[in-house]
């Protein structure tokens, strides 16, 4: 178009330059993935094998054995009969509506991604709470991880690692890890300095302070982070299914193209069941082991 005044239109980079930049960057990435793709893929191979085996275990074992194992775990961790019964009923409904297998697949990948997020996230949050410099680096990284749309990196990741569980896992972890990091950081920073000082005065090492004072006292916040991490991991189920992760996301996608609302809803509800199972169990565990703080 002719004559654009900088007054009305933003003075832009020349289109050709922009295209050149884009192309060269794209090219660079392509080169990179060609060069290192195999290697990186190899690096993740053990994890992939584990994921595959875990999924197989859940899908191929008789449903009643899996159900018993799940409920048993839920009960062991939460020690709550109410919760265990609720989960049993919900899981049976899931099975009855024909979503058992997909649910197992989703359960498998989500268990691993949530655990990964938490296991990586809490230590990062702790480091972040210790040092303002780490915080000033990690915070914007998390901002990027959370807001950069998964769609942007979905294809590049697939290009690098192929379709399937690993890129799915990576996408989920990238997206879901932020809240637990942020809230661990916040929680630890908010711990009452008087209590911390008492621990110091008795010669507690930084580690002892962390384990016995900071973590327990910031538990409500950390658990809020865990809760959000679980929620966000499960909200990524559909996105993950876009790059070939089997599970409840696929029928959801299917239902949307075909306008089968009820089917979408049912599968969505199965995801919700998983979310509630993870969340309530972890919260009950935290509450049980630290009841005084959460009622503080």
């Amino acid at each position: 178009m002719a004559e654009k005044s900088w007054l009305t239109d933003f003075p832009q980079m020349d289109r050709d330059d922009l295209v050149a930049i884009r192309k060269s960057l794209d090219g660079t990435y392509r080169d990179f993935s060609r060069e290192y793709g195999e290697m990186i893929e190899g690096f993740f191979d053990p994890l992939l094998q584990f994921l595959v085996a875990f999924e197989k275990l859940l899908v191929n074992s008789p449903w009643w054995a899996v159900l018993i194992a799940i409920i048993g775990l839920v009960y062991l961790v939460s020690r709550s009969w109410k919760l265990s019964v609720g989960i049993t009923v919900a899981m049976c409904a899931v099975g009855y509506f024909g979503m058992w297998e997909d649910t197992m697949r989703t359960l498998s990948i989500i268990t691993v991604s949530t655990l990964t997020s938490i296991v990586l996230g809490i230590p990062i949050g702790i480091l972040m709470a210790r040092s303002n410099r780490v915080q000033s680096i990690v915070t914007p990284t998390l901002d990027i991880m959370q807001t950069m749309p998964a769609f942007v990196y979905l294809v590049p990741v697939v290009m690098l690692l192929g379709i399937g569980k690993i890129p799915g896992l990576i996408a989920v972890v990238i997206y879901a890890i932020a809240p637990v990091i942020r809230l661990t950081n916040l929680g630890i920073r908010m711990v009452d300095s008087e209590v911390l000082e008492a621990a110091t005065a008795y010669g507690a090492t930084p580690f002892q302070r962390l384990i016995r004072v900071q973590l327990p006292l910031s538990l409500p916040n950390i658990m809020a982070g865990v809760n959000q991490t679980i929620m966000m991991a499960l909200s990524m189920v559909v996105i993950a299914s876009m790059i070939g992760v089997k599970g409840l996301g696929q029928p959801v996608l299917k239902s949307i193209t075909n306008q089968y609302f009820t089917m979408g809803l049912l599968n969505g509800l199965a995801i919700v069941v998983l979310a509630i199972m993870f969340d309530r169990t972890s919260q009950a565990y935290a509450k049980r082991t630290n009841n005084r703080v959460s009622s503080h």
Partner: protein
Amino acid sequence: ADTEKKTATECGDVTIAEMNWKSASLTAHIDKFILTNGYDCKVEMVPGGTEAIGTSMVEKGEPDIAPELWANAMKEAIDKGVAEKRLRYAGKSLSDGGEEGFWVPKYMVDENPKMATIEGVIENAKLFTHPEDKSKSAFYGCPAGWNCEISSGHLFKALKLGDANFDLVDPGSAAGLDGSIARAFERKIPWFGYYWAPTAILGKYEMVKVDFGSGIDKEEFLNCTSSKDCKDPKVTMYPPSLVTTVTTEGFAIRAPEAFDYLSKRSFTNADMNVVLAWMEENQADGEVAMEHYLEENEAAWTAWVSEDVATKVKKALKAL
């Protein structure tokens, strides 16, 4: 939605769906330009995925025009909409129809010409490693939920690919499928799966359609291959698939001239492929490509409109 009051000749406000793949985006921009400048419509673009756009058109009569709708996606719903007199097929957007099939990269065929046939592929099944199971071979199917999921599934069965130790991998979405192709091409490794054209991917990555040796059996395809309840599918190549322009019934009634234009506007696959290649080359979006197309292919597009409209459009084109 409130269309009834408008007089027949008045175009008024028009909304055009802009889907996010190249050809659709290009077509949408061409329609926008021509409708604005040739038919005095006030055009608004609406982005959206096929599903959302389709649903909204059926239920809400909005947007007015979907310039390129693949029957592949949500065929059922669209047909229902047409049957209920909510939608109207304006015409084929791609005159040759879309091309579907099972493809392998060209470099494989270059290396081993037999790969262009299904026998060759089956023979070399071992090459197509499965992403999650080393002992199996992978066939990348059509994303779940699309119409092609059914047809590609049936053909998978008919071709007895399963017996050849192939596993039907669901790529989850077009993105997944695209990613897997890109990965294969960047590393020059084997790939075998369902795809369709004209598309950016096939513009960018040269692939060869695998010959089933069966020819096209249109009857069989309509009755069995593409039907959910087909018990015993037989082998057939894909017939060209319908790629149409769809408008709402309201729009068709309100702006018959514009509708008339839409029913004439269609591209040959060859033309389209040229533009797509140019877009790829220049990482161009629909708007830029529209300019390019209108300038380069005057003969083609002037045939879709009356002379008087063509003049108007040309004038506008000059003013850019």
